[in-house]
């Protein structure tokens, strides 16, 4: 059986025969076919099953609006559910399977649902499955979920690449039918920057599907010539296989280009699809129109198709849906179908026209004033039953029925910014309203200009208007003679009094009966109708069904269609692969990776890395024989406190603050005072939000009267900089302050431990005095190291040891860490990572991210005295609100386990020594905890109600989540060297 329904002609390449498989069977087609056209050419009408009743279904349309012919395309990790056979280009070896059918497409066991359809009416599930209570999750829902859904996924990672891109143009033209091509020719010749995008792989739109002539050329030839000319203009970008999916604010459009979906294999390093963000100054919607069906009994059988689709298959793809095709229409378009079919030698047993005054058809019997009241055929149409004008019925044998209920303009994108369509009585349809997205105009059938001549003129004139508005001179392209038939249509939506169900939404199995029930139960608002019946909620988003649903509801309410409601659409115009929307920023490349200056060196040392924001930081440096991370961390801590350790602290934010008002400025952004900080000194600083909550801390080093270097936490580097710019530009615009981030410019290392000075003395140049007297605690300065390299030295300590932070230009950071390690050998220096850093700061009781959690004040942190009341600074006023200044509120304290081996756990909640353990008895919580190798036990810090006055008290740290409750003693958060003698040593 090889292409028995293939006709002559068409725009397919008969020299390139392609093999493909559908539902396990092999077929042949031609280059230029879609999966749907190739299947029809092979006499295959059955292509899918419906969502709810699993009714046999064939193609209804020839485009992206297809509700029925959905297949699983490709295999394995490229398996692609719900692909429309009507837009899937045929390629050699294409493999597709039917979906939502078991065991097979021809025999689907779930079709039994159809027998019970009377019980499965709209919204039936809201009225039952409620008893017994646990049964919903345990019994009913699992069954429903298994039955529901359409295609399936492979659960394997998608191997393909997806790109993003950005384009700029004067005029974006959406759709390359007659109006789009006329617009593009006009704009292209004017020299403007033009983008012409069309979802089809061949430009021309309906011109490729009709037998109309433009001038003395066929429509498709004229389109091809227009395409050729446009391709020769380098100010015009032609984008086929590109769907404009959304109209966003201010002329930005989203477009999806399918780069490789039509290829058997994807080419390495090339994207499968590209999501383009198009910045347009003006845009023209030339998206044409979609034919709409008529509802009648059993109108969903394979073979019942839209007349325009039948013409597309016959004219463009030379594929006859059947040997005998009857026509059911309410307008002259149906007659055009008859003429085309007859010209192709397809038998047309009858043209059934609801209009009593319909004009005769040459070569086919006209049944004027007749209606189709039923169809027959289990897996495909065999005949239709017609009620004649005189009331008699007649059966007409046919393998397909071409249905034409009129046309709906494709105005979807005009609604993407909540624009409302308007009713047009001539079309009996909606046309774009006045509230279009800014910069957009609409031309051609999309604007209700249905004849080819109108479309051409509309496109050309529209382009002229758009360009003139941009101050670009343009004159309309001269246009060929073209068909200009008026709309001759009798509004007709569904055949009354058919015995069985008439489908409105074919994919979701919504019938006229369901709409009636919705009306009966007062779900009459369009939105209620949609949600209650699921009308228009399928993968075609109601492109072929919404109007019909509206019309039926209008009949029931006795209102007009526009009174009943409008159909409004949201992006995307057609479904878009989630991978395309994601692009390349996935997996390992979800975020950029920030590496510290010592990264290469740390890798050599076998460091274990951890994510800190986008940074990768060394977490610890395992040594030979260390089998557990704790061994490494404990060693790093002990060695640092005993001798000296080195840690890369480059990730801290660094902001250069200059200007003669720099000190005044810092006085305002820090809670504590900075005005009097001497040059050459560093001071710890606390930043508050305006609501009085502490959000960041760090240091400010005064390198000169008018020059500070501010450090922020790694996490808040961006926020603090933003807030400082806000203060500088918006709050105190006439302070002489200049800001710039230097975070990345300097590689900075902490050198900590009793031997820190002795180590550094071997690094800093001879003329630099870093003796305790010459460079005391909290000193800073610009110095030179390693024989003349500019550097910065800060004597600050996070670990609580004698410590410095030394900075050099980043490119020398790798060299410096190697130099420090070498110089430190004699002191058995150790590098330490973020874990040891954390342990030492907890031992020292320094607050960090876990404590600065966005809900704690300086008071909570035990830094209440730091907040200067003598000056204005961000946050000080609101920090005095009663709720934030409760004297017996949370205070930062330390915790030690009563039983030495008990763990203190961050996230545990504090409870009194005895009594109930519950939310109502909550006394606070542990924010940070670790094992302290110096104290030989687990310790923690955290917030405790009235903590300052509860030192020595025994509490329970409750961690029910992990089934542990341990007794802890409340102690000072400064576990080590509370007097700070070490750091001043």
């Amino acid at each position: 059986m090889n292409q028995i329904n293939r006709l002559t002609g068409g725009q397919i390449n008969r020299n390139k025969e392609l093999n493909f498989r559908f539902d396990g069977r092999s077929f042949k087609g031609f280059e230029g076919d879609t999966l749907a056209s190739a299947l029809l050419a092979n006499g295959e009408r059955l292509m899918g099953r419906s969502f709810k009743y699993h009714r046999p279904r064939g193609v209804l349309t020839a485009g992206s609006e297809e509700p029925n012919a959905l297949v699983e395309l490709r295999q394995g990790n490229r398996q692609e559910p719900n692909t429309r056979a009507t837009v899937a280009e045929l390629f050699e070896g294409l493999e597709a399977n039917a979906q939502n059918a078991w065991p097979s497409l021809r025999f689907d066991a779930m079709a039994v649902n159809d027998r019970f359809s009377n019980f499965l009416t709209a919204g039936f599930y809201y009225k039952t499955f409620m008893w017994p209570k646990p049964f919903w999750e345990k019994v009913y829902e699992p069954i429903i979920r298994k039955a529901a859904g359409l295609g399936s996924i492979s659960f394997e990672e998608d191997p393909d690449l997806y790109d993003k891109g950005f384009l700029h143009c004067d005029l974006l033209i959406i759709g390359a039918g007659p109006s789009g091509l006329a617009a593009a020719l006009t704009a292209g010749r004017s020299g403007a920057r033009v983008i012409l995008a069309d979802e089809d792989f061949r430009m021309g739109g309906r011109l490729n599907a009709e037998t109309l002539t433009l001038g003395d050329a066929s429509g498709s030839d004229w389109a091809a010539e227009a395409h050729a000319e446009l391709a020769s203009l380098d100010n015009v970008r032609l984008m086929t296989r590109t769907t404009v999916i959304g109209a966003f604010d201010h002329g930005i459009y989203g477009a999806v280009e399918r780069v490789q979906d039509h290829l058997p294999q994807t080419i390495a390093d090339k994207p499968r699809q590209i999501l383009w963000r198009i910045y347009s100054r003006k845009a023209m919607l030339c998206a044409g129109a979609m034919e709409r069906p008529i509802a009648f009994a059993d109108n969903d059988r394979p073979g019942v198709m839209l007349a325009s689709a039948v013409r597309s298959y016959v004219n463009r793809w030379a594929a006859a849906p059947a040997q005998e095709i009857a026509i059911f229409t309410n307008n002259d378009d149906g007659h055009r179908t008859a003429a085309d079919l007859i010209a192709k030698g397809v038998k047309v047993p009858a043209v059934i026209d609801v209009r009593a005054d319909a004009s005769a058809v040459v070569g086919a019997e006209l049944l004027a004033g007749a209606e189709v009241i039923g169809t027959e055929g289990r897996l495909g149409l065999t005949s239709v039953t017609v009620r004649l004008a005189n009331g008699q019925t007649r059966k007409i044998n046919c393998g397909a029925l071409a249905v034409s209920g009129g046309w709906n303009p494709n105005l979807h994108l005009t609604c993407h910014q909540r624009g409302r369509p308007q009713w047009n009585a001539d079309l009996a349809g909606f046309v774009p309203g006045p509230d279009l997205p800014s910069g957009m105009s609409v031309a051609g059938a999309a604007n209700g200009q249905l004849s080819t001549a109108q479309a051409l003129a509309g496109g050309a004139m529209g382009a002229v208007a758009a360009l003139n508005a941009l101050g670009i001179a343009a004159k309309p392209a001269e246009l060929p003679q073209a068909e200009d038939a008026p709309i001759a249509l009798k509004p007709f939506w569904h055949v009354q009094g058919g015995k069985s169900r008439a489908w409105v939404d074919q994919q979701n199995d919504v019938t006229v009966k369901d709409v009636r029930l919705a009306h009966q139960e007062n779900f009459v608002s369009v939105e209620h109708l949609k949600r209650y019946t699921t009308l228009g909620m399928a993968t075609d988003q109601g492109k072929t069904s919404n109007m019909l649903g509206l019309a039926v509801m209008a009949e029931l309410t006795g209102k007009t269609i526009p009174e009943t409601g409008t159909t409004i659409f949201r992006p995307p115009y057609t479904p878009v692969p989630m991978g395309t929307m994601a692009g390349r920023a996935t997996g390992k490349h979800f975020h950029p990776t920030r590496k510290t200056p010592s990264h290469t060196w740390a890798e050599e040392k076998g460091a274990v890395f951890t994510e800190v924001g986008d940074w990768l930081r060394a977490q610890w440096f395992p040594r030979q024989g260390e089998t557990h991370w704790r061994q490494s961390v404990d060693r790093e801590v002990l060695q640092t406190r005993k001798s000296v350790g080195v840690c890369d602290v480059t990730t801290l934010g660094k902001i250069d603050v200059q200007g003669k008002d720099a000190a005044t400025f810092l006085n305002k952004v820090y809670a504590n005072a900075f005005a009097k900080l001497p040059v050459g000194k560093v001071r710890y600083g606390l930043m508050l939000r305006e609501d009085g909550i502490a959000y960041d801390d760090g240091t400010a080093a005064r390198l000169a009267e008018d020059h500070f270097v501010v450090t922020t936490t790694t996490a808040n580097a961006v926020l603090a900089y933003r807030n400082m710019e806000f203060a500088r530009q918006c709050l105190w615009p006439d302070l002489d302050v200049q800001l710039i981030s230097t975070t990345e410019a300097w590689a900075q290392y902490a050198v900590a431990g009793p031997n820190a000075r002795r180590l550094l003395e071997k690094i800093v140049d001879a003329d630099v005095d870093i003796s305790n007297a010459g460079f005391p605690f909290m000193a800073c300065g610009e110095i030179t190291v390693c024989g003349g390299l500019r550097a910065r030295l800060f004597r600050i300590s996070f670990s609580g040891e004698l410590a410095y932070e030394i900075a050099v230009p980043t490119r020398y950071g790798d060299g410096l860490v190697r130099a420090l390690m070498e110089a430190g050998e004699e002191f058995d220096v150790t590098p330490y990572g973020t874990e040891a850093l954390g342990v030492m700061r907890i031992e020292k009781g320094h607050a960090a991210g876990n404590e600065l959690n966005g809900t704690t004040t300086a008071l909570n942190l035990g830094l209440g005295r730091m907040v200067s009341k003598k000056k204005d600074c961000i946050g000080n006023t609101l920090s005095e609100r009663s709720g934030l200044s409760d004297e017996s509120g949370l205070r930062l304290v330390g915790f030690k386990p009563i039983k030495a081996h008990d763990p203190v756990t961050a996230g545990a909640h504090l409870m009194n020594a005895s009594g109930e353990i519950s939310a109502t008895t909550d006394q606070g919580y542990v924010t940070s905890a670790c094992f302290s190798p110096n104290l030989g036990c687990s310790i923690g810090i955290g917030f405790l109600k009235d903590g300052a006055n509860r030192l020595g008290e025994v509490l329970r740290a409750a961690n029910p989540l992990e089934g542990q409750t341990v007794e802890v003693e409340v102690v000072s958060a400064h576990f080590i060297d509370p007097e700070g003698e070490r750091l001043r040593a």
Partner: protein
Amino acid sequence: MAYSGLRIIKEALSGHKGWKPAWRDPEPKGQYDIVIVGGGGHGLATAYYLASRYQTAKVAVLEKGWIGGGNVGRNTTIVRSNYLLDGNQSFYNLSLRMWEDLEQDLNYNAMVSQRGILNLVHTDAQRDAARRRGNAMLLAGDDAELLDTEGVRALYPFLNFENARFPIKGGLLHRRGGTVRHDAVAWGYARGADRRGVDIIQNCEVTGFRIESGRCLGVQTTRGFIGAGKVGVAVAGSSSRVMEKAGLRLPLESHVLQAFVSEGLKPVIPGVITYGAGHFYCSQSDKGGLVFGGDIDMYNTYAQRGNLPVVEDVLESGISLIPALGRVRLLRSWGGIMDMSMDGSPFIDRTPIDGLYFNGGWCYGGFKATPASGLCFAHLMATDTPHEVARAYRLDRFRTGHMIDEKGQGAQPNLH
């Protein structure tokens, strides 16, 4: 008329002629005891509980469009009680317990499905925070489990464990959390309220309040003046617009939250999962569509639509977490207007105007709160005392510094 499987069979055999309207479309009366402004989930629930639990005789719900058309009809259907702070715990604990009994109470199948919610953690600090939260949940009588990487893998083997920028280090599992068929909630409450005599009046927009000597006497509407002993406003994203008509300013902003649904698929995602390293959360509807969302669009807006950057951001996160979704198609996006409060927590309170009450500030967590919000608002309006689980939701809490800031973001509504 009561719904049941038997009833369906009876109707099926008799041509479905017996089904009655789910709710009436009455003409507004001149005077009510209580008028609720806003026919969304919270407004309808409030009316239902006023009628069913507080025996309030004459109640009306005024809706400017069609009921259930606000956020209850455009959300990602998640219900949960996984809160950290005092002010929220007991409230959401009650709400979740009410969800568990809702269908029998309403005689309407809202498909309450406790499929479990998993919040992933990717760093040690996140695990510490999850532990604190999980313990808070358990201490408040909710359920929580802390999973390690393998525990997560057992539930969601197809997540990105191998090639992740931010490896999955575990997660906080809340088994009683889940999803509910959002439209059914509005319809179920509407039907329940209607059956108890509540007038649900659609296409009736409130244009002003009649306030005399500090007391609210009723509302001006597009269908005339409607008198009321008490007026309660529950209009979510429109809160500022409506309360402004009463001369009140509110500590909240209106922002758009986009949500997305994919084409229908055979079962993929068993529960609800939220990514800890990006903006993405996802579940699968009974119909088969993946329902997912991320962050708000960040700028104040009343337009129920968003822009591309957020869509891309959400999908970058989504595919980074679940690479197997690459070829699944995004079908539809929509936007709901969120009443983002200054600390991310809601208000259920009296206003300075006697007889005028306010319910709002739900940010994007309003849906899961619907039952408790309705009950507490009804309680407040019926008794003039706050319900015990909603005491903290005061309008003046920022004056006194009693913020309820779960995220610790401060007075920046778009960050909550």
